């Protein structure tokens, strides 16, 4: 079964068309990476799926259901997003408890205490953080809160927008391990946007390379590990990454 399918997706901001004819099929339980440099339109694709970039034509199907242009509650239970900047993605005046509890209130889910504690445990946040404000947390802890918030509604699909690029490498390792474990435990489907091919190699099964709003290649991460991508641009990205990592 496909968890996520994009057909002929053209996304625009006003008069500017950002992506051209994007087609993707992501299987249930798969971890898929969307790779490219800034301006390639990779984040825009994620926003369109989430409903934050409503100007698009084509088809977006999530878990078999065609997606409308706005955000509706049924959709929000299936698909959630984790943002890049752990400093900007948490409300500065709300405690961890309030941030996590919001989802339950919106969807009228009871059992608040137990649900919050359960999610905090699963993302590795100690109970003592529950009533702290974001400014009392480190970057890694904030990102754990952001992941916990996305998991509150037990979605099947998680959209990850450069979830570790703003973190220190040692913290990045913790978050990557966490994401990998969560995916295994909760059978999640990941669609991750990143520019870091090494992260893709660690976390993903397949990847698509984007350039100037088009997908230039869809390949297996096994190919990436062997250095076997075919498109010249993908190879260029791969070489830069390899040189960079000695």
């Amino acid at each position, binding site marked *: 079964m496909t968890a996520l399918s994009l057909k002929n997706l053209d996304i625009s901001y006003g008069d500017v068309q950002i992506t051209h004819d994007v087609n993707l099929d992501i299987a249930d339980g798969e971890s898929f990476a969307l790779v490219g440099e800034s301006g390639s339109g990779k984040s825009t694709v994620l926003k369109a799926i989430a409903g934050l970039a409503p100007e698009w034509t084509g088809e977006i199907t999530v878990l078999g259901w065609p997606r409308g242009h706005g955000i509706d509650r049924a959709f929000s239970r299936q698909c959630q997003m984790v943002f890049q900047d752990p400093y900007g993605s948490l409300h500065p005046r709300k405690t961890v408890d309030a941030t996590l509890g919001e989802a339950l209130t919106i969807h009228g889910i009871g059992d608040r205490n137990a649900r919050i504690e359960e999610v905090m445990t699963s993302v590795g946040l100690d109970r003592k953080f529950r009533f702290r404000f974001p400014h009392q947390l480190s970057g890694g802890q904030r990102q754990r809160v952001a992941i916990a918030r996305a998991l509150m509604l037990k979605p099947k699909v998680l959209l990850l927008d450069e979830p570790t690029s703003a973190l220190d490498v040692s913290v990045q390792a913790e978050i990557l391990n966490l994401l*990998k474990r969560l995916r295994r435990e909760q059978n999640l489907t990941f669609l991750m946007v990143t520019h870091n091919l090494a*992260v893709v*190699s660690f976390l993903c099964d397949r990847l698509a390379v984007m350039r100037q709003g088009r997908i230039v290649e869809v390949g297996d991460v096994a190919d990436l590990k062997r250095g076997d991508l075919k498109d010249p641009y993908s190879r260029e990205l791969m070489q830069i990454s390899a040189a960079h990592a000695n």
Partner: protein
Amino acid sequence: MSNLLEVENLRVTFPTPRGDLEVVRGISFTLGRERLGIVGESGSGKSMTGRSILQLIRAPGRVTADKLVFDGVDLLKQSERQMRAIRGARISMVMQDPKFSLNPVMTIGEQIAEALLTHQKLPRREVNARVLTMLESVRIADPERVAKLYPHEVSGGMGQRVMIAMMLIPEPDLLIADEPTSALDVSVQAQVLDIIDELVKRKGMGLIFISHDLNLVSSYCDRILVMNTGEVVEECKAGELMAAKHPYTRGLIASIPRLDETRDELPVLDRSAWAKA
């Protein structure tokens, strides 16, 4: 080789309501006309080290050192006016994001010319020629056109090259680059670093390259200092980084995912082993 910069027991302290906080705790190093990398995670004190050399730590922060000597000049004894003459002319600094470092209402050519004229008096024609040569040397293909542009009209990579041109045109002896490429795409990153590298070599400057990226630093520097919580935990030649001894450095290296990753789980730093609370 004579030392360009000598630092001994450098400390940077900030007072907080809960007592003084030492962000740099007594580090020492010397720098010749070479490329020195300072690596560390956020909060390691690496940027504060760079800023304290230029005396750019704002009050209430305090800088103390047994020795902070640049080419025979004791930087701690300089007045603010004397420091201004040293900054730019003899020691330059490239910062992370060109968007915040360039003046949005001046053209690029004017800004570079100003950087030169602050420290030297030159006839107009010569200034223009120098600006264009400088832009060319940071590999801007069409310097005459670019000199007339405003900062918002150029890309991030080009903005950062302009910054470098601005910092290097007075021909300083020491360049401090604080995360000069972190805001850029990887492909542009390599270009910008190559330019810095080439200019540093050609002009025989000293370079302090501050970054969080171990791999990047090891491929562009001669020597590396690894910092953690305000202290230097490891000092080694760039080529020998992979044979680092300190558990922190080793932990950092291990936690970076690789392109041909085969590990199922990345090793995580056990900070409790050496970090103070």
